[in-house]
């Protein structure tokens, strides 16, 4: 071979390689600009969708398929509690117009409480009560208490907390189901979502009732999540992008987090950031081809929740101070991407579509829940 042909081949390889890289891994990260007022408007539009489509008995519209112009008969108590929680978050964020709707959603849950074997209370309408449903009911009540200073549900919160503790195993892991008839937790069944939901519930319970000792089970579950949970649940890659863990860490920021908790928080922040950056590369005209279709609004919302919930740690804990700027930048980028894909209201836009995020023509109530919460929590980093 002579040097000319080798050099020529190398140039061709470089050109093809550079093009492939630019189209794929090095695709530009597109971060639409978003100001605070726009983000708040998008969050309230999402909350409006929830409220406008809420049923008279307090239940929420579960989903809507715009292609078939129909909603399914599905329902999910955990998601109902999550949507209610999001509305209370909006109230805490100054959007008090959602209090009535949130209280109607709460009333629907309060009609579905069952005593558990260990003296607690679960939120369920079937024999196997889900941990996540009770957890997010606790969180809803805690958000309501913070927003209104109304303490009428304090005893219920504590009873729900008793149920959460009932579901905890010695290593801090949480069992997902409780058999109401038998009065005991269903063994060996866990949930990657419910563990973090329960932890946040326990943390909020300790904040509300510091004398009742909910911090001890909270620490036990946080230790478990920071060290073992992802291995036990066969998560790959790790860590599981758990916004509930993020909320919990944010809540427990002032409790005195140990180095392994901070290491877990850092790993979570890195994970959320990587996902947001990858999604930002979908912003090019060919992005959906090289990076797959855009995720549902609820998915993006959870990333924003995760980043925003832990942002206070970067402000108050020296061990994460180096991430303060990068977290803000990534959060702002994600918020811009999320707001851009929301259905705008208009004269010819149905209330079943306005303010929603659609995936394969389907929107679900937790799309609006997570998006509203994520956008609301992103406000501090936006201009």
């Amino acid at each position: 071979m002579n040097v000319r042909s080798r050099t020529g081949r190398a140039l061709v390889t470089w050109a093809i390689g550079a093009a492939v890289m630019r189209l794929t891994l090095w695709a530009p990260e597109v971060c639409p600009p978003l100001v605070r007022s726009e983000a708040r408007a998008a969050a309230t539009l999402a909350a409006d969708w929830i409220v406008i489509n809420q049923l008279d008995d307090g239940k929420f519209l579960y989903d809507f398929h715009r292609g078939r112009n129909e909603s399914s008969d599905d329902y999910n108590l955990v998601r109902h509690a999550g949507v209610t929680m999001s509305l209370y978050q909006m109230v805490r964020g100054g959007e008090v117009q959602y209090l009535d709707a949130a209280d109607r959603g709460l009333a629907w849950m309060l009609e579905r409480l069952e005593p558990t074997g260990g003296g607690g209370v679960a939120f369920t309408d079937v024999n196997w009560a889900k941990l996540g449903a009770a957890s997010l009911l606790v969180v809803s009540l805690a958000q309501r208490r913070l927003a209104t200073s109304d303490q009428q549900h304090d005893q219920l919160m504590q009873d729900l907390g008793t149920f959460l503790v009932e579901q905890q195993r010695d290593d801090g892991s949480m069992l997902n189901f409780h058999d109401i008839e038998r009065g005991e937790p269903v063994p060996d069944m866990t949930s990657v979502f419910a563990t973090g939901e329960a932890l946040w519930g326990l943390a909020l319970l300790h904040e509300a009732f510091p004398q009742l000792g909910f911090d001890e089970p909270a620490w036990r579950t946080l230790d478990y999540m920071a060290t073992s949970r992802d291995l036990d649940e066969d998560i790959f890659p790790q860590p599981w992008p758990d916004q509930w863990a993020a909320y919990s860490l944010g809540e427990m920021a002032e409790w005195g987090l140990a180095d392994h908790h901070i290491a877990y928080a850092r790993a979570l922040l890195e994970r959320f950031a990587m996902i947001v950056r990858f999604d930002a590369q979908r912003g090019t005209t060919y992005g959906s081809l090289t990076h797959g279709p855009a995720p549902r609004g609820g998915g993006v919302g959870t990333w924003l929740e995760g980043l925003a919930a832990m942002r206070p740690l970067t402000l108050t804990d020296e061990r994460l101070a180096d991430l303060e700027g990068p977290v803000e930048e990534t959060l702002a980028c994600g918020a811009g991407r999320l707001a851009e894909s929301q259905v705008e209201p208009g004269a010819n836009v149905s209330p079943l579509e306005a303010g929603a995020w659609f995936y394969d023509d389907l929107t679900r109530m937790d799309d609006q829940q997570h998006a509203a919460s994520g956008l609301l929590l992103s406000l501090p980093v936006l201009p």
Partner: protein
Amino acid sequence: MTLAILGFLATVNPAAAALALVRDRRTDRPRSVVAGVGIAAAILIALAAAADPLLDLLDINLGTYRLGAGVVITVAGLRWLVAGAVPACEEPDEDRRLAGFVAFPVLLTPGAVVLSVSVGAEHGALATAVAAGIAVVLAGLGLYMRRSVPHLFMIGLVRMLGAAATVIGIIVAIDGVRTF
């Protein structure tokens, strides 16, 4: 810094450089080799110095860049590990052509180029100059003294450095995933 030096050694692959030209004929043109080494070093250092503006131009975050750089280094490393060195070329007659060939494609490998931006962004141009300088000088020496170095040893060393580049590429990619 140690990882940067090892990284450049693996991505420049002085053993592959030593095998880039045929051994049965070698003209004594140290100036051309030195010129090629100098050009390669200058370009790698310039890339390191321009790392931040380059990333801005590409509109990508350092973490995203590192992920891609890691993939490039890994692929290049695997190529050396599996296929060994590229067949040797006839030494060109013209001094300038020899210098140019030494610079590209012998020393300015895909892995070295992408690594220089990554190291530059994190450690600065000076650190890159030291780390890349060591690698390209060794590579240039290997090329110049190729008839003196054991051929079979170099063939094996190419693959070993390819394996090292593969590992370093994976490390860089994982670091990219974890970098904000």
